[in-house]
């Protein structure tokens, strides 16, 4: 095969990728903002931190704002993917790798060496980059900044500015615009501002609220049921209790109802913070996800393993937290294990009874996971008072999960590798929340992507731009609806399809999964013949 065609297609540089003057100016302004952060990192002290941080954040804002306007406002409304595979940043070129490495390093420092960012040791005051953020943190929560505050601010900023860019890019598509406004809102309000204000409440002795992002559900929010977290809620009066109940209800009631009606997209593409970053700042990398069958296999093993891990970890953490005396607290260890066992068994039974024929390959993972968890419950129950599961202390299990899954997988790999593996690496291969929602989406939901009769021309735009690595075309060219547990319902496949073949819909359950052998358009008798 022609090497050039494979690599970048072009001997001479296709000039569609050149930046306009205003875009260059915009890049300059934006980089200026970042440069202030770099200076701060190297402990350059700024006379007025409040002003400096405003200038830095402001110029990033303005930079991306001008850049996006220049990129999209003067063009016609429509799909804007020209040159995606020629641009270094979006085709794993030098720029892509450079950004990937910088991001990865940033995450490593953030999680493991926050002192390099200037985090104060006990009693001292912050220095460097973190100190630069002190004025903003003091303004919001009254506390000095931490590395998490810096991260949260930059994270929110990225979602807001690149969300704006995304909205302009999809000026013709209201589905894209609305869901982007939605994730911007939830990130700014629920993940960023409300927790900071909740921290204000903690100034009063009656409150001891843990950091709680209301939209972040267990098991994504794996620390929700940690001892310190539960203690915090329980020692914060009615509000604390209400929040804890909300946390439990959102997992077991709100989420199943919404997922039944709308599919997992209500969360992954409309609410979730990880999804928000992936869809906005990560939008330029969605085409990099692997569509290979082998990647799909890896995905199913990995994500379900993480789910089982997180369930066992959480059970053992709660188990360790609980006591055995029913007089002290109604929920004892045995009662807890028993109820979990019943819950899991009933889910398992319902699936096996009613959905067996729809399961296919996924059944194996479900069954294996189920048995591992049930075995864990038994072992915990019969080994009695110990806090060990499979000979591992629950606290070690918890910290291993926090380190390997919470930090390395979701942060370092999940975001750091955006420019290499695509923007939903974490959502696709690791997120236990996505696994649960996906399981339900596959089996108990009205959501599907309908394919439009025989209109597909197998062009491959849909598959290329599916960030979850779903080979959408495989279904579309067979006229089969797409009912995949991993689909986050971003709607981009539908947007980029040049023939109007794909529609995200919530319709009744009948004929939702419609594998057929002959497409619409041919002889009716032949279609009947094959259907038989």
């Amino acid at each position, binding site marked *: *095969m022609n090497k050039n065609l494979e690599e970048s297609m072009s001997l001479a540089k296709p000039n569609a990728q050149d930046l306009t003057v205003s875009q260059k100016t915009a890049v300059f302004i934006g980089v200026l903002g970042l440069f202030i952060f770099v200076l701060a990192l190297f402990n350059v002290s700024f006379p007025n931190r409040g002003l400096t941080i405003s200038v830095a954040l402001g110029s990033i804002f303005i930079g991306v704002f001008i850049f996006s306007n220049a990129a999209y406002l003067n063009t016609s409304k429509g799909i804007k993917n020209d040159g995606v595979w020629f641009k270094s940043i979006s085709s794993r070129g030098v720029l892509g790798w450079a950004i990937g490495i910088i991001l990865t390093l940033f995450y490593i420092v953030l999680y493991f060496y926050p002192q390099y960012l200037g985090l104060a040791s006990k009693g001292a005051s912050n220095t460097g980059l973190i100190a630069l953020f002190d004025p903003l943190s003091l303004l919001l929560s009254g506390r000095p900044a931490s590395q998490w505050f810096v991260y949260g601010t930059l994270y929110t900023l990225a979602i807001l500015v690149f969300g704006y860019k995304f909205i302009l890019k999809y000026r013709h598509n209201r589905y894209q615009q609305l869901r982007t406004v939605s994730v911007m809102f939830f990130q700014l309000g629920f993940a960023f501002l409300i927790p900071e204000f909740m921290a204000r409440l903690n100034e009063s002795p009656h409150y001891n609220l843990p950091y709680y992002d209301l939209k972040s559900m267990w098991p994504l929010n794996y620390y929700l049921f940690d001892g310190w977290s539960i203690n915090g809620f329980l020692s914060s009066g009615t509000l604390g209790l209400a929040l804890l109940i909300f946390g439990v209800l959102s997992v077991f009631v709100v989420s199943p109802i919404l997922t039944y009606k709308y599919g997992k997209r209500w969360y992954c593409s409309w609410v979730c913070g990880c999804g928000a970053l992936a869809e906005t700042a990560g939008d330029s990398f969605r085409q990099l996800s692997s569509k290979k069958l082998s990647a799909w296999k890896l995905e199913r093993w990995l994500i379900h393993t993480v789910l089982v891990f997180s369930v066992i970890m959480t059970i053992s953490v709660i188990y360790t937290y609980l006591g055995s005396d029913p007089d002290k607290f109604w929920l004892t260890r045995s009662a807890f294990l028993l109820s979990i066992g019943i819950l899991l068994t009933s889910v398992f039974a319902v699936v096996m009874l009613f959905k067996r024929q729809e399961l296919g390959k996924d059944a194996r993972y479900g069954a294996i996971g189920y048995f591992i968890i049930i075995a864990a419950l038994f072992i915990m129950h019969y080994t009695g008072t110990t806090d060990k599961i499979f000979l591992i202390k629950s606290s070690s299990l918890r910290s291993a999960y926090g380190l390997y899954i919470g930090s390395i997988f979701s942060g370092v790999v999940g975001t750091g590798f955006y420019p290499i593996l695509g923007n939903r690496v974490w959502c696709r291969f690791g997120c236990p929340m996505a696994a649960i929602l996906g399981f339900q989406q596959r089996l108990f939901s009205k959501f599907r992507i309908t394919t*439009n*009769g*025989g*209109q597909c021309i*197998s062009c491959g735009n849909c598959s*290329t731009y599916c960030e979850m690595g779903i080979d959408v075309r495989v279904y579309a060219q067979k006229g089969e609806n797409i009912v995949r547990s991993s689909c986050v319902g971003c709607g981009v496949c539908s947007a980029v399809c040049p023939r109007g073949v794909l*529609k995200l819909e919530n319709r009744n359950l009948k004929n939702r999964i419609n594998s057929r052998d002959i*497409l619409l358009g041919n*002889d009716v008798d032949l279609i009947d013949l094959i259907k038989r």
Partner: protein
Amino acid sequence: MDHVVIIGNGISGVTAARYIRKLSNKQITIISAESDYFFSRTALMYVYMGHMKFEHTQPYENWFWKKNKIDLVNGFVKTIDTDHKTLVFENGNTLNYDKLIIATGSKPNKFGWPGQDLNGVLGMYNKQDLENLEKLAPNNKLCKRAVIIGGGLIGIELAEMLSSRQIPVTFLVRESSFWNGVLPEGESTMINEHIKSHHIDLRLSSNLKEIISDENGRVKSIIIKETGEEIPCNLVGLTAGVSPNIEFITSSKIETNRGVLVNRYLETNIPDVYAIGDCAEQREAIGNRKPIEAVWYTGRMMGEVIAQTICRNKMTYNPGHWFNSAKFFDIEYQTYGWVFAKPKENHAHFHWKHADNTKCITIEYNTITHEFIGINTFGIRMRHETFDTWLTEKRTIDFVINHLSDANFDPEFYKRFENDILATYKNQLQNV
């Protein structure tokens, strides 16, 4: 065991192979001189525009063929010896078949224009054309202007491709309005405007007189027949339609006209030799369809049918209701049933256009029975299945207009136009 040999690895040949594999254990070989693996021809434009890499245009991963025991041969068939059931390749190799399916597709039309074979002149059909285009027009420094001859679906795609790299394009269209042999006037006019809004220099009612060469045998300019105007350019795209790619067959005993002649069973005059896809010509046209249908869907449908016949379930090619689709820059187009450029006898058109000039529909219907004949829709996606059902049930235009929302296929939260369309419809009826 039967050996089924298929010449051509396009949609029709590959569909045939896949269905034969589903239905039988026969030995299957697909031959192509163009590419090792099946790719989607319709997606070539997106490779040049940088939306996709070439590998993304391949609908099946490379292991697929081996796993399904479909042999692939890269080679050019020079002659077909039907007496000995043997194919002779350009390099002298031979291959025997028990059943032969000819699925060789099309080639771009050339009408004997002076200079049509110069360096810098190309069609836009196969992978090699794409590679040439990449060499000749990588950017607007090396290609200062391109001229496209022929206003059809491929011509407008080429215009979009070139303008994605900011190469100025002059678009010569023989007709007085874009594609108005197929599109009714309102739609055709709307597309004219849309083309111009993308900074394409659209020249209607303009024919090519000749292509002028520079001293190195490269394109220097073209001359327009009507005005004599000379337009300097570095690239000329010939997109004045396609015709069956069957030159190598004409020397064989297989009967050909413009294409390989087939009956409704897709059989040629020679037993065990069949033809499908772009290269096949029906001896008698089916309904309103043309004898040669050079579209993706019909190639696929013929592939589905021929597989049945070859696997001992002899079947006629009996396509259902006509449908098609395309995209004109940012405007998507779909059609279901028949809408003719000028309404047929006893037919009339209902036309609705949105004020923003990017959305419209045209419905053709029978003025006596009010039967719904077909719809063209621009900028609004419609549901294939719904229209297919309505056509089968022979619904009236009133029914269709009143139930249009059932057929809407736009993404969620899109603005809907059914009420507006209904109001326009009622209005027009009152004025009649």
